């Protein structure tokens, strides 16, 4: 059984310049204890996807179609109080900017204890401050922060970006969600810290067995900790498959281009190939396949018609090159 099942999802923003369709007929699922990497450039709708799963879309956005089934519950038609109940314990989302992720005027300990308190309330457990504090300290140790007692007594601005991201992961562990959504959790961090945080997430996934949906623009980050990878372009799925499959033999021209644009360590001779063109205008998207203006293999049919999803053995691709 899958933790998250998205069918035919459409999300639209209304702006002064018109309606912007950020997610266009998107379908996929995330299995139990599975990790899915969602890859795409900025504006591809990947962050919107994360927010729509936990019902935190900004006020000018709306669900325009499709369904999101999270742990057996339909999210798009939930009331606000029902949505509150799924947040945290069913799905927990962590955000990109570590400097803004913790409340600047409250101590770290207060914010973590709040999480335990909310969890206890939802699961009907009794909340006991001493027990909760012990649990918080333990989880802080779990995310490999030495001197938990010291960190807990600090304000967020006294911590480094890496430390804050770990504190937030600790918060996620305290909430014990079935699905953890991480929106660019490492983009704002130094490369070395990035690697540490990724390793931590990898370890925790194994230890706690939670499903992870990792949203990133960096396909190599996704490869590091994902079982499967989904590539998005202009609000649409373009390729979905096992991490190894997508990385080693990408099928869609956009996925190919993404992988070709990764600098590959010591191989200095390998040509770096940037993707030509610029991201599409989302209010008046290109006709047919949205990638066609930038596609090196463009055909006549690409300009006229939208490609359908084709695939087998869990590999999905949307391109006229493949049937």
């Amino acid at each position, binding site marked *: 059984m899958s933790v998250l099942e998205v069918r035919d999802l459409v999300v639209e*923003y209304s*702006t*002064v*310049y018109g309606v*912007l369709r950020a997610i266009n007929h998107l379908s996929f699922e995330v299995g139990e204890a599975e990790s899915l990497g969602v890859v795409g450039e900025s504006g591809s709708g990947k962050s919107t996807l994360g927010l729509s799963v936990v019902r935190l879309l900004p006020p000018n956005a709306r669900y325009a179609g499709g369904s999101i089934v999270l742990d057996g519950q339909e999210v798009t038609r939930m009331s606000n109080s029902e949505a509150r109940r799924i947040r945290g314990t069913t799905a927990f989302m962590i955000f990109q900017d570590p400097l803004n992720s913790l409340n600047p005027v409250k101590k770290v300990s207060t914010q973590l204890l709040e999480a335990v308190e909310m969890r206890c309330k939802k699961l009907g457990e009794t909340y006991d401050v001493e027990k909760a504090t012990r649990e918080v300290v333990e989880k802080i140790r779990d995310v490999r922060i030495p001197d938990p007692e010291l960190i807990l007594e600090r304000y967020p601005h006294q911590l480094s970006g890496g430390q804050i991201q770990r504190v937030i992961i600790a918060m996620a562990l305290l909430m014990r969600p079935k699905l953890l959504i991480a929106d660019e959790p490492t983009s704002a961090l130094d490369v070395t810290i990035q690697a540490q945080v990724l390793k931590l997430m990898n370890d925790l996934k194994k230890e706690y067995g939670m499903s992870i949906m990792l949203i990133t623009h960096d396909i190599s980050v996704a490869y590091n900790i994902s079982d499967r990878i989904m590539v998005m372009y202009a609000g649409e799925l373009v390729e979905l498959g096992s991490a190894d499959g997508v990385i080693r033999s990408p099928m869609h021209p956009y996925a190919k281009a993404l992988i070709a644009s990764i600098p590959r360590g010591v191989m200095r001779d390998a040509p770096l190939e940037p993707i030509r063109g610029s991201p599409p*205008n989302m*209010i*008046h998207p290109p*006709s047919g396949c949205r990638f066609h203006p930038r596609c090196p293999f463009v055909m006549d049919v690409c300009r006229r018609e939208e490609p359908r999803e084709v695939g087998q053995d869990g590999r999905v691709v949307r391109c006229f090159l493949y049937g």
Partner: protein
Amino acid sequence: MGVKEIVKKFLGYRGTIPTATVVKEGEEERRLSGYRFYLDYLIKDKVAAVALAIITLFTAWSVVEGTLQYVGYATRHRALGWALLPSNPIALNFAASLHPPSLSHFPVYIFGTNFSGESILSRLLYAAPKDALAAYLVVFSGIIIGMLVGTFAGYFGGWADEVLMRVTDAFLALPGLVLAIALSVLLGSGYNSVLISLILIWWPTYARFFRAQALSLKSRGFVEASKLSGQNSLMIILRHIFPNSVDPVIAYAALDFGNVILTYSTLAFLGIGIQPPYPEWGSMSSNGLPYFPQNWWWSIIPGLVIMTVVVCFTLIGDRMQDLIGGRLTY
């Protein structure tokens, strides 16, 4: 290159801050900027369009009436100043003393009369050019002085900048109205001394505004590039810093016209500025104070007129700031 291209290039080059890209299929990217950008948006918004219409009317009337008054004054035919008005604004007519607002003799009594029997409507219309002149003159002088002082301080930095910041701090420490009272009283009562003291207290805000702009612009790519290409500082300031700082100031200035009218009217209310028998919106309101509340219209109607004009300026400024703040863009 045709005129159209030149204009297009010019418009496209300016306005780095409030721009929006509107792309339609099969159409070239169109960039709106500067006043075009604002105007386009304001006309589309109904409330803002009404406000813009009222302001245009107020300004146009002020130009016409102000010209007549000036020509009348210069040629010693003062009656020219009230040629267009329903009645003579400074003629005593005690038979009509304290006439409440009514439709008889339309439109003379529509806003009632004061103790001397002068039509409030005529007096309001007669006083309008002075308010308009004060608003536009003070804000534009403030912008020009502030632009010169602020841009140079921000661009060159150093001790000049430090001194400027301290001086503006000191100016801004005092409520504008209090300093304006002190200055106008010291300068001696009259319209000119009010204008001078308003300009004196108005520039520091703009100086800080332009200084901040210059500070952020001077490290931007296109300024660095001009420096490297050997342009001198003056050219850089004229070509790049000034044009790029003006856009965000426009929105603030629109709101600020209203602020000037408020301060100017409050000074007039306190008896500073134009002296009797000539009418002034603020002083009309305070002259009615002893007759309040029995003859409420005398005090309240001029206040309402001031409020209407100021609300319109505020609305336009507010909408422009929404645009700049990006709350309406994406």
